[in-house]
């Protein structure tokens, strides 16, 4: 690209340092997942896979992970429905209070989770609802809506409505038009929004902390609890390593999608 040799080297070196900063803790997490002892000291005490074995036999984090998956899935589905329909409303109609609603839907993700968490906790306290999986899903959906909304809206804005008009002129019904014309154009935006939504919900701790019931131990909550017990820390490192490895395919899919779209517009929009 542009830039002199000097520029390349300066930026390259700095970038390498920044990337190192980003990855050093990750590398240590993976490293200490193989720690022989429970004391994470330096130099490295020695290798062992015992924590992965313990994790394998421990049903508690497995159930926690499964619960997190279910919650993320439910929140994503709800967010897809609510966010997509809202995006269509914004793209195809003019109405009263657009800017305000736009602002309102962005708030849950811009404001820190602790505010959403305590606000909803107060809400459920007053409506006398038990905290449970359902309350967590409600909390997660609230901040996931905007992720889908922004992605789909940006895409709809780039697609001319004349395509849909043409489809109708050719005799297709509303449903057919949606299925064959509209949906394909927003499909990747939906996937991008869904991926973001799922990822954020799966790892969420701030909102979840205030909305989880005694029965609702999500993976992040299990991790927070495992920190209480010094025996638990290496197992947590093992769990984090597993999560990272398992999520690599998802990241690869995201990368593939972005290649289709050209650069990084898909996720950013």
């Amino acid at each position, binding site marked *: 690209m542009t830039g002199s040799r000097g520029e390349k080297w300066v930026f390259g070196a700095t970038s390498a340092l920044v990337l190192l900063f980003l990855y050093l803790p990750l590398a240590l*997490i993976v490293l200490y997942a193989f720690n022989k002892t429970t004391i994470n000291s330096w130099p490295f005490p020695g290798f062992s896979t015992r924590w992965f074995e313990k994790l394998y036999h421990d049903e508690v984090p497995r159930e926690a992970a499964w619960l997190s998956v279910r919650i993320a899935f439910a929140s994503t589905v709800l967010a897809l429905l609510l966010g997509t329909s809202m995006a269509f409303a914004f793209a195809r109609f003019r109405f009263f209070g657009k800017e305000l609603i736009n602002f309102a839907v962005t708030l849950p993700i811009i404001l820190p989770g602790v505010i959403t968490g305590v606000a909803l906790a107060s809400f459920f306290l007053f409506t006398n609802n038990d905290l449970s999986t359902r309350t967590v899903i409600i909390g997660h959906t609230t901040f996931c809506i905007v992720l889908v909304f922004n992605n789909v809206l940006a895409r709809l804005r780039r697609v001319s409505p004349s395509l849909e008009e043409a489809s109708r002129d050719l005799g297709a019904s509303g449903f057919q038009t949606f299925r064959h014309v509209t949906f394909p154009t927003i499909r990747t935006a939906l996937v991008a929004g869904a991926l973001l939504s799922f990822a954020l919900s799966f790892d969420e701790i701030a909102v979840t902390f205030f909305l989880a019931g005694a029965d609702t131990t999500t993976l992040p909550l299990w991790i927070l609890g495992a920190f209480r017990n010094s025996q638990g*820390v290496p197992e947590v490192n093992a769990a984090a390593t597993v999560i*990272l490895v398992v999520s690599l395919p998802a990241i690869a899919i995201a990368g593939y999608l972005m290649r289709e779209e050209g650069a990084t517009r898909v996720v950013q929009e």
Partner: protein
Amino acid sequence: MESGTRLIRRRISRALYAHPRGRLGLLLGPAVLWLLIFYLVALVLLLMTSLWQQDFFTADIVRHWTLSNYDKVFTGQDGLWLKIYWRTVRLAAIVTLIDIALAFPLAWFMARIVAPKWRTIMFLAVVVPLWSSILVRIFAWRTILGGQGVLNQILVDTGILNHASSAFLYNERSIAIAWAYVWLPFMILPLYTALERIPDSYLEASRDLGAGVFTTFRRVILPLTFPGILAGSIFVFSLTMGDFVAPQLVGGGSQVLGGAIKDRFGVAADFPFGAALAMLTLLTLMLFLAITRRSGALENV
């Protein structure tokens, strides 16, 4: 003759076509209703809670309107809570600046120096850390900065220190480091998007007109990337204002807002006071948002 479902679908389709307001209602209604009930009403309830009190013994909420919680926030306890508030704002600002400084070179490198085919990979490389548990990533700093951790051991081995220092962990510094680390990708991504959009021709034109590196930066690059910087800043500032995980895992005695709010709701039952603190946080961030809204930075969520 059309089949049953086909007929119904056609009828609905026609009805929707004939009543655009109805379509709008169906599309907009559910989402707006959801936000209204599960967010805005909840926020108002939080406000109402901040105007009540909680019995210190039984933890029952006493619905008696009072401003005592706000009084305590602004004037109480020799200004303790204001001290905590400004400490949090200061840390949030510092972390935001650190992240801008760290993100810019990398974003520039990714957007303008690296060949296009590598960009996606680098983008993913920035995103990958986000897919590992945020709690574990913060906890890792305990390991790195602790007495037996990597940093101290290296400093001792190379002779820079005589013995392990306790200055790296369990204080505001370690919280700031953990925060800067964890939210860094959220600053890199918008910056990268913004930098990528600057056409080469702009920079060439600037050079042709005789501008040096700094002038080009100040008058061309900075204004164009400003929305990106703001978008990233909103996220980082907001997330640090509310976080309670890093202070608990790597912090010392000094409290920050997020931790104080969480303690009032999760540990010491004083919901009304916690709500007042939350309202203060909310107001601060709304102010920040209002100032930055003009630049359209909010669209890059």
